[in-house]
């Protein structure tokens, strides 16, 4: 029997979710962990099944050599990168497929990751396909004079539109995730910032190319969830709204669908905009031959203009809120996008079309993080002594924090503790349930100096009231 065995090249809650998806699909799996993470739940769950060695200790989650070494040793046939780490690393995906003992990379093919991983290429491609993008340069700029010219034009355009405080963003072309971005609100300081970002980009990415974009302030952050297969099938799972973020542009509360005109008032045709961004996203996916799960990130300004920001060629943390509000015709349970992702990566057809996907209700995700939201979201570290919540049929919790033993938060990684996914018939019910669930969560812990744990629970509670509002 030729059974697939998936190496889960990640940690924390996503490792657990992938593990579960593999089990659901009847696939074998192996996890990796570092010395620091040895008491993490993903390791303990994997070790529970004693028939096979399922957990391998490695030196570093970021070292591809460790992943492949274990993959060969454990006779794996596929690698799931989760999110972060190798998820959008085209080099890693290429190596997986091109090595002497090839492994299936559970994600889009490496060429797509490479091409869409570059903001510039994505932007240029979008322009070609008549998809709107944020005004600015559509290629890396290496020349100061040219850069200043672009900035000048962007300032002019904003003034023409009557924007009160026009500004532009200077971004490292090769950067991502909020790194190497700076705002310029006065043209005469542009050169200084440009040089700073150029130097940063050169140091950090070995490429001093810089992008210049109009800085949009008043906007909503939307996403379109797509699932594609290598057989040319493209299906969307609706939209999400991820506008509520920490100061470091980290998402904290996400909602599906992207807008709800039944609850909130929008100064534009909300449904029309959602349809539009879905249409654009599907068009682009079809054009590049996208073949796995992916998210198209959009910015919608107050006048209802959508701009494509970037494409995330991976499974996202918040994927399950889209899954929760969708139902595939003929399926017995709720949709599981991770499962679908693994299935198509292994070569399956989708087995359904867009017409088979229906949507119902509203879903909210809360990200529980040990951080001080009053002090610039600084992470807190220490040991969690108690983590508990009331189980509800309409809520799911994903966490690598054990509920039975104390857990020391590793200092090497983000201090995410848990994800809570709530479903409701409509937005109002979902909000109410989210508040209700929040009240039932208990987290206790002690810091280095005996102080009590700090989390963002109160912050999340406050934010629930603001979701989906422009």
């Amino acid at each position, binding site marked *: 029997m030729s059974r697939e065995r998936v190496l889960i090249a990640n940690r924390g809650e996503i490792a657990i979710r992938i593990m579960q998806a593999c089990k659901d699909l009847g696939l074998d799996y192996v996890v990796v962990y*570092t*010395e*620091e993470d040895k008491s993490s739940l993903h390791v303990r769950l994997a070790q529970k099944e004693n028939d096979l060695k399922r957990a*391998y*200790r*490695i*030196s*570093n989650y970021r*070292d591809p*050599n*460790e992943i*492949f*070494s*274990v993959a060969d*040793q454990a006779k794996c046939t596929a690698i799931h990168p989760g999110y972060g780490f190798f998820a959008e690393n085209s080099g890693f995906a290429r190596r997986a497929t091109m090595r002497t003992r090839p492994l299936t990379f559970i994600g889009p093919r490496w060429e797509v990751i490479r091409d869409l991983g570059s903001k510039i290429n994505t932007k240029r491609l979008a322009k070609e396909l008549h998809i709107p993008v944020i005004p600015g340069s559509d290629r890396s700029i290496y020349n100061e004079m040219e850069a200043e010219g672009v900035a000048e034009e962007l300032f002019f355009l904003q003034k023409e539109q009557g924007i009160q405080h026009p500004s532009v963003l200077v971004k490292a072309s090769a950067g991502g995730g909020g790194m190497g971005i700076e705002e310029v609100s006065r043209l005469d300081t542009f050169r200084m910032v440009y040089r700073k970002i150029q130097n940063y980009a050169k140091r950090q990415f070995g490429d001093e190319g810089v992008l210049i974009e109009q800085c949009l302030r008043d906007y909503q952050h939307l996403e379109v969830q797509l699932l594609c297969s290598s057989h040319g099938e493209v299906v969307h799972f609706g939209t999400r709204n991820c506008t509520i973020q920490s100061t470091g542009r980290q998402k904290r509360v996400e909602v599906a669908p992207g807008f709800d005109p039944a609850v909130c008032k929008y100064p534009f045709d909300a449904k029309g905009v959602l349809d539009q961004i879905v249409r654009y996203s599907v068009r682009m996916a079809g054009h590049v031959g996208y073949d796995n799960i992916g998210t198209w990130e959009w910015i919608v300004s107050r006048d209802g203009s959508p701009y494509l920001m970037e494409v995330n060629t991976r499974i996202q943390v918040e994927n399950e809120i889209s899954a929760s509000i969708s139902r595939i015709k003929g399926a017995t349970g709720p949709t599981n996008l991770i499962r679908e992702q693994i299935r198509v990566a292994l070569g399956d057809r989708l087995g359904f079309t867009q017409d088979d996907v229906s949507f119902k209700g509203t879903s909210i995700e809360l990200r529980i993080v040990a951080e001080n939201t009053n002090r610039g979201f*600084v*992470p807190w*570290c220490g040991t969690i002594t108690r983590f508990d919540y009331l189980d509800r049929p309409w809520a799911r919790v994903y966490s690598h924090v054990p509920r039975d033993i104390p857990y020391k938060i590793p*200092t*090497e*990684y*983000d*201090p995410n503790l848990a994800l809570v996914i709530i479903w409701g018939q409509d937005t109002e019910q979902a909000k109410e349930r989210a508040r209700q669930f929040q009240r039932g969560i208990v987290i206790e812990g002690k810091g*280095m100096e005996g102080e009590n744990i700090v989390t963002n629970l109160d912050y999340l509670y406050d934010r629930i009231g603001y979701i989906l509002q422009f």
Partner: protein
Amino acid sequence: MGINLDDLLRHYRSHIFEDYQVKTPHTGVISFEVEEGQAVEGPSGRWLQRPGTLLYILEREKNAKRIYASWKGQVTGIRSELEGHFVEADELVLFIRHRLDREEIIDRILTQMLTILRAPQQARYFLSSDILAGLEKRPEARIAIGPGDEVVIMSLMKRDTPISYRGEPGVLYKVYFRSGDIVEQGSPLLGVCPSDRLQYMQKVIQRIRTDWED
């Protein structure tokens, strides 16, 4: 300055050996190049440019990495059953029993007289760029340090926090970690010798030099 040199020396005489753990830096198939009880050398040469004795080869992804001894001593507790097998990262494969020599005794005793800056939290630590540059230029240089100087950068959860020295002014005598290492909470990072104690230190060194025989 309450140290009893005689007691210390007596202590070290009875604890002359230190066992260093040798752990695999990463996964791979191991093949040993030394045997139980074998004497091994640490790195040598003025710039430590010559590696120590070859301990084992760790092959991963068709790269046979040669792992050398970092200390002079004797191989003990070698796990020969691992020979030719796949090992995980951080696997303890042998010990090196190292006999302290005079300079090391001096070093250890001096450490007890230094003002120690300890790691406030378990985190990744880096030397400040000034100190790093100074040491790179002349590794044996004694860099002056005063209170308030940013000497170490603590990197915790992807955030960098500079750590200032708070003790008496003096010179940097010892660095206990490698820049970029994860250091346990409370472990020493830097040892600073207060300027007024330098002379006394010299005397102690002299004393040990005459008293201690290798």
